[in-house]
């Protein structure tokens, strides 16, 4: 009996491209909102006291500019300065991971077919190229996990699992687009399934660093905070 014609296969295919998409999005958004509140409940508001100029309080600026922030030194000491290669790889990977799926032509066509609305899409050649970039970045991460001493020292099996889970939608998407394997249906199903699993995993697993980073780096005041936070632990 042909595998792709069995009842189970049809049911599974219909399930992962139907109800499971909704389940994935509900779990993702529900879980994210839950995590945002749970993270914010760990912090409290802090009023920032401002030093207002007054008698005996006025601090004049130095005329020679000695008190200016040394941006060159600041950059040198930041992660971008110490580890420029990993900064580029990591930033590219994470930005593309989030942005790319939204602008892929295929996804927008599906949106158009389902709801009659779609957003601008990237040309297919560009998405194809960006997919290769994402897979390359993931390969660099894997290389680090396997061969770089300091990364190996703290690597656990779950790190490989989550790296695999993050890269899987891109690898399967790439295969599906180029129809590398004869069984297109199987590959596209794996593509959909891996995407859904990844979305559902974001709020509750290691992927939580996506939410954690935004909340803590932007709202908590510290030397390294991004933006002007007004909360504290």
């Amino acid at each position, binding site marked *: 009996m042909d595998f792709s014609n069995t009842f189970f296969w049809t049911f599974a295919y219909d399930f992962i491209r139907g109800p499971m998409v909704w389940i994935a999005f509900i779990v993702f958004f529900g879980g994210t909102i839950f995590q945002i509140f749970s993270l914010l409940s760990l912090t409290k508001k802090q009023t920032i006291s401002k030093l207002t100029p007054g008698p005996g309080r006025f601090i004049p600026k130095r005329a020679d500019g000695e008190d200016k922030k040394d941006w060159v030194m600041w950059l040198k000491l930041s992660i971008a300065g*110490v580890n420029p290669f990993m900064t580029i790889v*990591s930033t590219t990977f994470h930005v593309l991971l989030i942005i790319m799926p939204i602008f892929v032509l295929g996804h927008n066509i599906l949106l158009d077919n389902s709801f009659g609305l779609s957003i601008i899409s990237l040309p297919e050649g560009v998405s194809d190229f960006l997919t290769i970039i994402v897979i390359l970045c993931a390969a660099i991460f894997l290389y680090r996990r396997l061969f770089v001493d300091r990364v*190996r*020292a*703290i690597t*656990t099996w779950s790190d490989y699992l989550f790296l695999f889970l993050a890269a899987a939608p891109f690898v399967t998407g790439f295969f599906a687009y180029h129809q590398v394997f004869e069984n297109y249906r199987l590959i596209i199903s794996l593509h959909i399934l891996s995407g859904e699993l990844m979305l559902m995993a974001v709020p509750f697993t290691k992927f939580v*660093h996506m939410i*954690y980073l935004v909340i803590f780096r932007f709202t908590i005041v510290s030397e390294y905070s991004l933006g002007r936070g007004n909360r504290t632990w």
Partner: protein
Amino acid sequence: MFGKKSTTGVNTKEVKAILNEKKTKMELSLKACAHCTLCAESCFLFMGRNKDPKYMPSYKFLNSVGILYKKKGNVDILDLGEMRDLVWERCVLCTRCYCPVGVDIPEMIALARRVCRSQGVYPQYERE
């Protein structure tokens, strides 16, 4: 019992009580740590010890609080002894470490220190 480690000499109730106070933050921090090792260079001890991975802030955090969390506080005196070296000898709590994700590593190390201290495990400088 077979497979169960002896926790003699450690008041696990006390350890669990301390861990419970910071449970959510500890759990989230351990989850959020992506094991990326980008915090390494921010530790002056790591830089000064020939970039030995054992001095990485994340290594110290994962092998102290991580173990306490994994064992749910049921640690034995040997575990705490190893932790003592980690959180006192290899970290001076200068709070200069930098985590790209935003994990509060110093607080986690301080938590491990608190647990060790509550069980009488700390460096005794006058004897050593």
